[in-house]
């Protein structure tokens, strides 16, 4: 006979201001099977927990319902308390009368009744709970870092320095990410390459880090502590173990007119190339789409000039399978191109460039060797206009959020321009200057006060070209919203920071959630800023939202800390709330018909085929089997099984039925 205890929490006033807790407790005491019911101001407090512990012992409770907040919040607290009192923790359930009741309803009888119903349902459920044992799983102490930008580099180095193995996967031929494209960095104006390249080299040299460049994550299976990851190593057509990075092939390649991705189309590169001089690894790749040999079957000049005999035209993509215990997503962001604004010419004007292109132009290693030269004719722009919020804070044509980094980099751009073109004029159209951060506001002030950037508060309405000039039409809202027209030589649009094009696909491979802008979502915006909702997968850097370098690095170190904590244990404890296929006596063995329609539906690939054999080893039947190590208890297989042969511990068919029954028959 069930002996259930019900504990109603006031949650200060969070619940009690709306729900009549003493009344709920009084009614609950009369539910069949309930032997003890009480309400208290803070159940989660020490005295509150003691009430639970004491009641279990005193009233020999066989089940506990704590009617309080969301199980996400305090289920572990109360299950621990039950365990302390000798009750199996899985015989404790939470009835959520805060989020599901007091926070969403007005005070009144109906609300009280709902709270009572919620409690009744959980009482009926807990009567049918089974004592469960938690599952222990081993931890593979290797981390996978996806993305080799500054966040990925930082995370990898920190984890490696903590003594754990790291596998880094980078999509491009070199690590470095967007930071390697930048000229100088705010607010100190130190050279981006100068501070980044030592860390890139460290990654290459650290014995704990295995680096795969020109590679992508193909698939991820498994769960925290035990992921199996397939990595596609794209064919570089160059044997990395043999190539010595002399670079002769890249200088001899006859096909040198390919738009350079690293220079954002402003420079050219050969078909066999290293993206930039400081690349790590310093090993070229052949761009198969543009290579003359791959197109026509003739050329092979690189192979002829290569002293190390490293060229491999027949190299194929390789799939590498690795086992890792944790994954850090550091895939970064992208900027919108200049072609999405109809009123700015849909990208048809050559001299309108985006912020990243300006970085390359300002960079000493860039296509103009750091000189300001506009793309159309190579002239030095004497008048330059920077347009902030190009696509940001623009629900109509762009994105509604603030891209956060543009105010700072636009101030930096105006300064860099003035440092290079002393007699030039730099205008900045802005809406607000968002420069919160250590030394940030001082930096933008410096741009205005010392370097003379002319800031105009207003948004640009239209840009058109006339007689080789770009006519920028805006308004000055600090001056009676008067129209301002500037005949500029070049325009830089601080285009919105957006999610990486492949982000959605990667999120689906990893089973992590993402927001409407395709940025990865953290588990909690305040308290779990670097975790995802999938245990063992973490986030750092601008893949989460636009972030600047200090923030990305800080988040990366945070992730490294989290992963190091995870790797500090040899075993992980997992909740035993997993699915299982029923078993019955022969000749049925199970009600499972072996149709295996549950197999494709399982997001964790946890469903296997099990052979039932007789004593002579003859196959009698094939049944579904759910691997308890892989099952995450999502219940999708339960829903798809027509013969109801699958059940899930903690949420059994019977538990669900009596919950609904309790509600309908109240």
């Amino acid at each position, binding site marked *: 006979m069930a002996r259930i205890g019900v504990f109603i929490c006031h949650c200060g006033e969070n619940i009690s201001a709306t729900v009549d807790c003493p009344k709920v407790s009084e009614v609950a005491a009369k539910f069949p099977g309930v032997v003890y019911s009480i309400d208290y101001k803070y159940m989660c407090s020490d005295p509150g927990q003691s009430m639970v512990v004491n009641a279990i012992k005193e009233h020999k409770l066989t089940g506990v319902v704590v009617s309080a907040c969301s199980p996400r919040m305090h289920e572990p607290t109360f299950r621990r308390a039950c365990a302390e009192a000798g009750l199996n923790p899985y015989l404790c359930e939470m009835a959520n009368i805060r989020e599901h009741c007091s926070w969403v309803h007005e005070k009144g009888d109906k609300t009280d009744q709902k709270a009572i119903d919620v409690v009744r349902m959980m009482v009926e459920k807990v009567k049918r709970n089974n004592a469960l044992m938690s599952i222990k799983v081993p931890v593979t102490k290797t981390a996978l870092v996806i993305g080799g930008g500054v966040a990925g580099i930082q995370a990898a180095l920190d984890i490696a320095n903590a003594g754990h193995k790291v596998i880094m996967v980078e999509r491009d031929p070199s690590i470095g990410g967007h930071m390697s494209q930048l000229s100088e960095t705010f607010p100190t104006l130190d050279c981006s390459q100068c501070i980044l390249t030592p860390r890139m080299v460290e990654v290459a040299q650290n014995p704990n880090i295995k680096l795969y460049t020109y590679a992508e994550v193909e698939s991820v299976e498994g769960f925290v502590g035990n992921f199996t990851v397939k990595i596609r190593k794209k064919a570089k057509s160059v044997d990395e173990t043999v190539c010595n990075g002399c670079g002769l092939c890249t200088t001899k390649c006859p096909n040198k007119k390919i738009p350079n991705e690293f220079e954002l189309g402003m420079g050219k590169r050969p078909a066999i190339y290293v993206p930039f001089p400081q690349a790590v690894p310093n090993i070229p790749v052949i761009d198969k789409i543009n290579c003359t040999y791959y197109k026509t079957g003739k050329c092979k000049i690189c192979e002829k000039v290569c002293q190390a005999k490293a060229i491999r035209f027949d190299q194929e993509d390789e799939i590498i399978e690795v086992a890792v215990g944790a994954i850090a997503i550091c895939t970064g962001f992208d900027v919108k191109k200049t072609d*999405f604004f*109809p*009123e700015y*010419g*849909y990208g*048809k004007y050559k001299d309108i460039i985006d912020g990243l292109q300006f970085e390359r132009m300002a960079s000493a290693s860039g296509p103009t060797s750091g000189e300001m030269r506009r793309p159309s004719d190579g002239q030095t722009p004497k008048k330059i206009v920077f347009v902030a919020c190009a696509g940001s804070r623009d629900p*109509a*044509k762009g994105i509604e959020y603030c891209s956060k980094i543009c105010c700072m980099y636009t101030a930096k751009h105006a300064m860099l321009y003035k440092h290079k073109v002393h007699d030039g004029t730099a205008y900045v159209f802005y809406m607000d200057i968002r420069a919160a951060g250590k030394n940030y506001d001082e930096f933008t002030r410096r741009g205005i006060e010392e370097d003379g950037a002319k800031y105009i508060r207003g948004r640009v309405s*239209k840009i*058109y*070209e*006339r007689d080789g000039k770009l*006519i920028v039409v805006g308004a000055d809202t600090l001056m009676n919203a008067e129209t301002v027209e500037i005949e500029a030589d070049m325009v830089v649009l601080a285009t919105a920071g957006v999610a990486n094009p492949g982000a959605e696909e990667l999120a689906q491979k990893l089973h992590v959630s993402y927001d409407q802008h395709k940025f990865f979502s953290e588990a909690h915006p305040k308290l779990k800023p670097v975790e995802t909702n999938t245990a063992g997968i973490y986030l750092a850097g601008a893949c989460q939202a636009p972030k600047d370098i200090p923030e990305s690095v800080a988040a990366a170190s945070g992730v490294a800390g989290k992963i190091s904590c995870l790797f500090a244990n040899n075993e992980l404890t997992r909740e035993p709330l997993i699915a299982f296929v029923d078993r019955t006596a022969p000749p049925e063995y199970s009600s499972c018909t072996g149709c295996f329609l549950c197999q494709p539906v399982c997001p964790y690939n946890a469903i296997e085929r099990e052979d039932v054999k007789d004593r002579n080893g003859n196959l009698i039947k094939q049944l579904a089997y759910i691997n308890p190590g892989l099952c995450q208890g999502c219940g999708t297989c339960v829903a798809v099984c027509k013969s109801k042969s699958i059940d899930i511990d903690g949420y059994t068919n019977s538990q669900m039925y009596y919950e609904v029954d309790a509600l309908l028959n109240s």
Partner: protein
Amino acid sequence: MQKIKLGYYPGCSLEGSSREYNESVQAIAEKLGIELVSIPDWNCCGATAAHNLNKELSLSLPARNLALAEEAGLKELVVPCAACYSRFTTTQHELMHDETMHQKVNGIIGKEYKGNLRILNVIQFIEEFIIDKLDDNIKFEFNKKVACYYGCLLVRPNKILNFDRTEDPQTMDVVMKKLGADSIDWAYKTECCGAGFSVSFTEAVGRLSGKIVEDADHRGAEALIVACPMCHSNLDMRRPEIDKYNGKKLNIPVLYITQAIGLALGIDRNILGLQRHFVTVKLNDFKPFAKKIEVENLQITEEI
């Protein structure tokens, strides 16, 4: 050739100050075997005046015409005047999205508009019923450099009209290219000419239209191509104000797109009403049409 029958709403201007627009639409329609049936007993759409002064009036005047057209069993309605087109489309949109207003307006006009009419502006009319017939009927190549001017009402508000790209529309350019013209890229395609002030505030018209004419001329266009009687009368008749604003005399003529098509089809200039223009249309020396001109069909939906 099977005759196509379409509903037609000329509007007041096309019967008065812009009668050459009406003449040219009718001329090309007739040439290509299309019959335009006017709405019986149609009235003025109310133009800017009505919606400036009274919302219900501004919806009722077009609604009466729409209801009459429906009564006459018309399915498509060609509305060459961009202003009328804008009022009609806006009215249809408002009535279909606001049931209370719909009922109210039905009460005011004493008729019921069900909303089954497809309203076409002149360019949509050309795209749907004319353009495919051009290759077989063109006699002369319109070998001129032209600036296609769309103005406001053909493309805005995009949410209601849902026609072409708001900032850089292409449909007229495509038609002109098909006629053999070189249509230029310029800055004032969709800027306002000041239509609503054509009588009441002519200085503003001089300034707004002045910029349009000057930019087209500056970029070497030999003609401005329009599809709206307001635009035409401002750009053509208001030349004294325009020239005053620019401080120079500009002789670039302004043609309705239907006149341009008419010329290419070899229709007489006077039938197209070219003699009615204030700025003399000197364009002649057209080359005989030799071969089909392939024009890339642009994706013209706004991609946001």
